C-alpha cells in the first residue's frame, strides 16, 4: 500500500518492483485494505444482498 498510495505506483509497477505476480500484488492490496476497514470499524459495509438487488 505504501508503494501504491504514497509512491503512486500502479499494480503492474509494484509487481515488477517486488518481482511478484500481478495477481499476488492485487490480492495483497485487497487484504491490506480489508484489514484496515476492519481495524477502523468501517465494516459492515455494502452487503452482497444490497448489491444483488441493484442492477
Amino acid at each position, binding site marked *: 500500500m505504501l508503494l501504491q*498510495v504514497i509512491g503512486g505506483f500502479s499494480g503492474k509497477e509494484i509487481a515488477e518492483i517486488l518481482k511478484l505476480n500481478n495477481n499476488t500484488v492485487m490480492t*495483497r492490496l485487497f487484504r491490506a485494505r480489508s484489514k484496515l476497514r476492519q481495524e477502523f470499524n468501517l465494516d459492515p459495509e455494502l452487503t452482497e444482498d444490497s448489491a444483488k438487488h441493484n442492477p
Partner: protein
Amino acid sequence: MDELEFQKFKKIVYADPGTEDPEVLQAARANPELQKLVDDMRELDTSVAATLSGIPIPAGLAENLLAIPEVDTAVAATESPAPAPRYHYYALAACLILAVGITIGFNLNRGPTSSNLAFGDNVLKHIYVDVDLLNSAMAESATMTFPVVNQVMANAGSRLNDNGLLQNTPVRFALPCEVIPSFQSTHLAVQGNAGTVNIIVINNSPVNGEFTIRDDRYDGIVIPMDQGNMILIGERNEDLDQYKDLFSDSIDWVI
C-alpha cells in the same frame, strides 16, 4: 449483480480504489451502493496518505529493518550513505517479502524436478495469499450451484460433472486464479474435516508426474490429469485421498 460479480467488483476496488476499469466504473455509476463503496475506499486512501505524510521516516529505518534477519548486514548498513527517499519504500517492501518467506518441504513419491519444486512453491504461495479471502468467503457464502461453479471453471477449460459424487461435498468457493502466469486456473474450496480443502484446476502446467507438497501447515497433492493438473491442498491432518477420488471422477475437460 450476482455474488460472483460482487466479489470480483469488491476485489478490484479494494486492490485499487483509483481503478479506471470501465466495467467497474459503469457498475458503480449504475448502483449507488457500489459507488459508495468506491468513494469510501478512495477516502480511506486519502486518510492513509495524509496520516503517513505527517510521519517522518526515522533515519536508518530501512537499514535497521533489513538488518533484522542477519546481524552482519547491520554493520554494513551503518557504513552505507543515506539512501534516496524512494529507496525507503523499496527497502520496506523487501522487508515484507523477507518477513513472509515460506519454508517448504517436499515429500516426493518420485524424484522431483526443479520445475516441480518451483510449481509446488508457487501453489503454496498462492494458498497463503488467498487464505484470508477464502476463509472469509467460506464463512459468508452458502453452497455454490453447479452452473455458477462451471461458469468459473470454464476459465480453465474444465467443468464439474453433476454426477452425484459431490452431493455431500458441495463447493463453497470458486474463483478464477493464475497460479502459473499465462495458464488459466480455477480455485475451488470445500469444507473438509480439518478445515478448508482447496482444489486448484490448471489447464496446463510443467508438472511431469504426481507428487506431494508439504510445509508446516499444509499437505498437498499435485495430480496430473488428461488435459491439465489438479492440486489438492488441505490442513496437515486432512485426508486428501478421498477428495482426490471425488474430484478426479467429477472434473471434465472441455478444451
